[in-house]
């Protein structure tokens, strides 16, 4: 069953077509790897999908519902999408604990002050922070965390939001081997619990290990899709994206 359908999506920044007639389908309860060289348009597609950028042309359907995001910032919450960013967007002046608590609130300013005290929210925060090994840092200011820990905190917020669609923009960037293992297991858990996961990632080992299929973008266009092991061994993909082995050059 199709969870997200993208049809002829186009986005132009200045005179450059950053996304150019991009069409793709993302199926329910799968992990899709979204790969391509830097600047190929992957993050822009995700920004269009989540309403961070406005669509110039084309359609996006989520669970067969047409998303009209000509205006900025569609209500992701109602579409049940959560996402992370390449550069983690967390609240530096809040504690680790508060950073997760805040995403559990309904989107009303006044009630949010009281909702943080709800027992459900507190136990949910503890559960996700323990999962990502940040419970010991719960009182630390988010701004004092290392880059990898900030990525993990943003990841924890997605876990806490418990949405049907989870989108991760380079979740493994800047993570050490042990943390990569934890994150990859959590992503597999998301799939096992029925979620649809989109992974923008440059770590090909993780893509091959986790993704059911991959979409490859280059210069704003979809250039390949299919099983990771098959697509990522193609010579044209190796040429533009993976490059030669370091010792070959």
């Amino acid at each position: 069953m199709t969870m997200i359908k993208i049809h002829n999506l186009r986005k132009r920044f200045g005179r450059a077509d950053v996304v150019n007639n991009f069409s793709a389908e993302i199926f329910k309860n799968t992990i899709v790897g979204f790969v391509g060289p830097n600047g190929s348009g992957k993050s822009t597609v995700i920004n269009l999908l989540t309403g961070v950028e406005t669509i110039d042309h084309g359609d996006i359907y989520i669970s067969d519902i047409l998303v009209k995001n000509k205006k900025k910032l569609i209500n992701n919450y109602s579409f049940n999408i959560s996402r992370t960013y390449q550069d983690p967007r967390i609240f530096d002046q809040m504690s680790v604990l508060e950073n997760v608590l805040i995403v559990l609130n309904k989107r009303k300013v006044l009630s949010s002050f009281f909702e943080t005290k709800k027992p459900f929210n507190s136990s949910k925060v503890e559960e996700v922070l323990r999962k990502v090994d940040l419970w010991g840092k719960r009182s630390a200011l988010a701004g004092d965390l290392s880059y990898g820990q900030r990525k993990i905190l943003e990841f924890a917020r997605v876990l806490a939001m418990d949405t049907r669609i989870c989108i991760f923009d380079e979740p493994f960037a800047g993570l050490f081997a042990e943390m990569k293992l934890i994150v990859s297991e959590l992503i597999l858990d998301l799939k096992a619990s029925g979620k649809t996961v989109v992974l923008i990632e440059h770590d090909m080992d993780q893509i091959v290990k986790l993704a059911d299929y991959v979409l490859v973008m280059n210069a704003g266009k979809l250039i390949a899709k299919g099983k990771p092991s098959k697509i990522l061994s193609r010579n044209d993909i190796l040429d533009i994206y993976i490059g030669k082995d370091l010792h070959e050059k």
Partner: protein
Amino acid sequence: MKNNSLLNLDNVTANYGSFKALDRVSLTVGEGEIALLLGPNGSGKSTVLKTIFGLLPIVSGKISLHGLPFKPVSFEMPMNSFALVLQGQKIFPGLSTHENLEIGGFSIKSKELVDKRISEVLDIFPMLIKLMEIKAGLLSGGEQQMLALARSLIANPKIILLDEPTLGLSPKIAKEVFHKIKEINELNKVSFLIADHNLNLLSFLSRRGYYLESGKVTLCGNLDKIFEKHFLKMIMK
């Protein structure tokens, strides 16, 4: 290593407020050597680089260059032959590539010398020549990382402190960046102290490193031995 050591950290401790970020860290980088900083997230790798560059005050211990102790002051570091390239391609996005390179030479008084250095650095990074008038914020991630590296070379450093040079870069571009680091090291005899997680690529650059955990150096020496002990530790856990 002690005989031709360029940079020495001797029992350096540094704090973030009341939190002990580095705990008696000792390490050495030799002349023309590439040394690596490894360790879990939050172990203090970036903090080591920031402390050496004077962005975090030292509580105790000493840092020396060519055996002579000095107190790091960040804006004086380029004059002391140090360069720091921070995580995440920290270039000035609103300035052109050329202006970014000029800023790299702020410690050089003569404009002619800055221009000469830019032209020498462009010999190493020919891909930047056609991008000189373009705003740096419009460059791709790989180009921005090349620009950050090129800028660090303008003041002719003896050692470059490099934090996660391949962060967010596609595999092909990451390999190109590592080739460039190797080229700079071999041709210009510049030393590097590099913090990164990309273990496969790091072993291409160097075989010697330091493994940090909770602000302490817990393993050092040959990479194979570090990996061996590290994985043993993981299994023991």
